[in-house]
């Protein structure tokens, strides 16, 4: 064990070795995050390359081919309008990302500044903001989203806006907690002593640190966004058929499932589950890596 005697001054490794080492190291620490990342990558590729991958036009109705089971020509079968389920599932990944990404951006854009401000200012403003945030927690968010979208009207824009706004309080809480912890730390105090204006302290000093917790949450929130938007579509609020969005497809498929034409609803459902699972796994792994308290070991 001669090489261990000197502590662990690492010997120089080739670039490829280092990359492989990082991957192995990450997957040891958190295998879920790697699997999750692979799944997200897979669906990302599907979404990007959809036009190349789809065997048929996703919204081409063909009355002659209604409700055909999975076959060589139609791997996933056809639905009640004769449309190819496989193509629709592939194209549906675009909707999933098209919802998840804007939702997370909106939630972050709202949540981070409010969280920073609330945590930094403290006092009555903070109290008031936290009351509002708590109010959101009292409610099951599904119902809230449902009610608001139903009232405002079914459209993609409304769905994205509503879910984005509903997710913001979570970021507010996470960022605020970080700010509260950091606010009394020495580097903020020294920034104040030097005379930095408030916004500078907020954005230059606090933001980079406070943002870590928020980043860990983004993947999980993306998973939630995809899941909720599908629920909305399933209930007929939000995205309507024949749009090839997975939730709407499951809505169609629900009636057929009871009669035995399971492929119409099951395939989009499995795709939905996989994608949400991918985001959740990646997010769970992220949280493990970024939050030192959650890591195992130590005294």
């Amino acid at each position, binding site marked *: 064990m001669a090489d261990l005697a000197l502590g662990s001054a690492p010997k120089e490794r080739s670039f490829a070795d280092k990359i492989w080492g990082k991957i192995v190291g990450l997957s040891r620490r958190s*295998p*879920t995050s790697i699997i999750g990342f692979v799944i997200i990558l897979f669906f990302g590729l599907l979404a990007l390359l959809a036009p190349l991958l789809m065997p048929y036009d996703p919204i081409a109705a063909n009355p002659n081919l209604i409700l055909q089971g999975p076959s060589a020509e139609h791997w996933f079968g056809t639905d009640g309008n004769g449309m190819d389920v496989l193509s629709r599932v592939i194209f549906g990944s675009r909707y999933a990302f098209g919802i998840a990404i804007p939702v997370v951006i909106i939630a972050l854009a709202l949540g981070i500044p409010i969280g920073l401000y609330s945590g930094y200012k403290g006092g009555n403003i903070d109290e008031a903001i936290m*009351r*509002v945030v*708590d*109010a959101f927690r*009292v*409610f*099951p*968010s*599904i*119902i809230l989203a*449902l*009610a*608001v979208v*139903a*009232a*405002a*009207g079914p459209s993609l824009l409304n769905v994205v806006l509503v879910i984005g706004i509903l997710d913001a309080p979570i970021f507010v809480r996470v960022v605020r907690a970080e700010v509260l912890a950091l606010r009394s730390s020495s580097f903020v105090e020294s920034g104040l002593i030097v005379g930095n204006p408030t916004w500078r302290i907020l954005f230059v000093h606090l933001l980079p640190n406070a943002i870590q917790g928020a980043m860990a949450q983004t993947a999980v929130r993306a*998973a939630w966004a995809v*899941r909720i938007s*599908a*629920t909305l579509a*399933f*209930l*007929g*609020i939000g995205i309507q058929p024949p749009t090839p969005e997975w*939730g709407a497809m*499951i809505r169609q498929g*629900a009636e057929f*499932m*009871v009669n*035995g034409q*399971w492929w119409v*609803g*099951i395939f989009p*459902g499995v795709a*939905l*589950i996989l994608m*949400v*699972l991918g985001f*959740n*796994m990646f997010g*769970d792994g992220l949280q493990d890596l970024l939050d030192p308290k*959650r890591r*195992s070991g130590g005294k």
Partner: protein
Amino acid sequence: MLLRRLVLAIPLLIGILFFTFMLIRLGGQDPVGLLAGPTATTEEIEIVRAELGLDKPLFTQFWLFLGNVVQGDIGKSWISNRSVTLDILERIPITLELLLWGVALGSVIGVPVGLRAAFRHDKWFDHISRGISLLGFSIPTYFLALLLLFIFFFLLGWSPPGMGRISLLISPPPTVTGSYLIDGLLAWDFSVARSALAQLILPVIAVAIISAAPIVKHTRAIALEVISSDFVRFARASGLSSDKVSRIVLKNSSTPVTTFIGTELTGLVGSVSLIEFVFAWGGVGQYGLNAIIRGDFAAVQGYVLFLALFSLVVFIIVDLLVLILEPRAVAE
């Protein structure tokens, strides 16, 4: 401390009431039309308008609305043509039956799994249970319900069709608690009880699966924190056997776990509503979702209000439980 919670609840309630009040005015449509329903005639619309004072300024409207709510009047559902309050009150025990059985089953499964995962931290049981828990987080509730029906009703034929709480061929028992199962047993009518039980199984399993995922995750997190605490380390240093140490961990985890399950209930009502919808269960959830879908806005208001009140009641009960279980809390 309890009083403080109650006092804080009031502005929260008013805020929620305001929100529900504003809800139907969100889309820019004339609220009268929404409240009276698509089947209302022009005269009926005018009557509703006058009754609710919808021709008056917004603030007066809200004041009238508050007054009505306090008296228990949330308006009339145009679908059922009855008072929303009555509609909802009738259905509360129906939803509670599903919710309570489901969460009970979910806890009975979830808590031990979470604890075991914590004790076998980073071993294969831990990883697998976390994976399954993540899966539970990833299945949309309604899809799970559909899937269960597909597998157990269509494929296997074990379960009756998901059409309500009792077979359509059997008449329901006299109402005592509102639960067909319990009322059937109370009336010694075993065919009723059996049918009610058969109808209960799948939706309860659905609720259990959905509730188990967060329970496993948080029970594990709580137990891990307790295991790494100073007093557990000291217990080990005192030479207590691992059995005794485990018991200490269990005891100290039970309060936070119970608190967590309580707060989970508030989120679970949403999932239960979806399950009710798929299984045509006939509880507040199905009523509320139907109302949202079909635009019965008075009923939507009632539903939203019910959810808020339910959450508040649950929080108060959880606080009371903490007072009972935790000697530290009493000292405050």
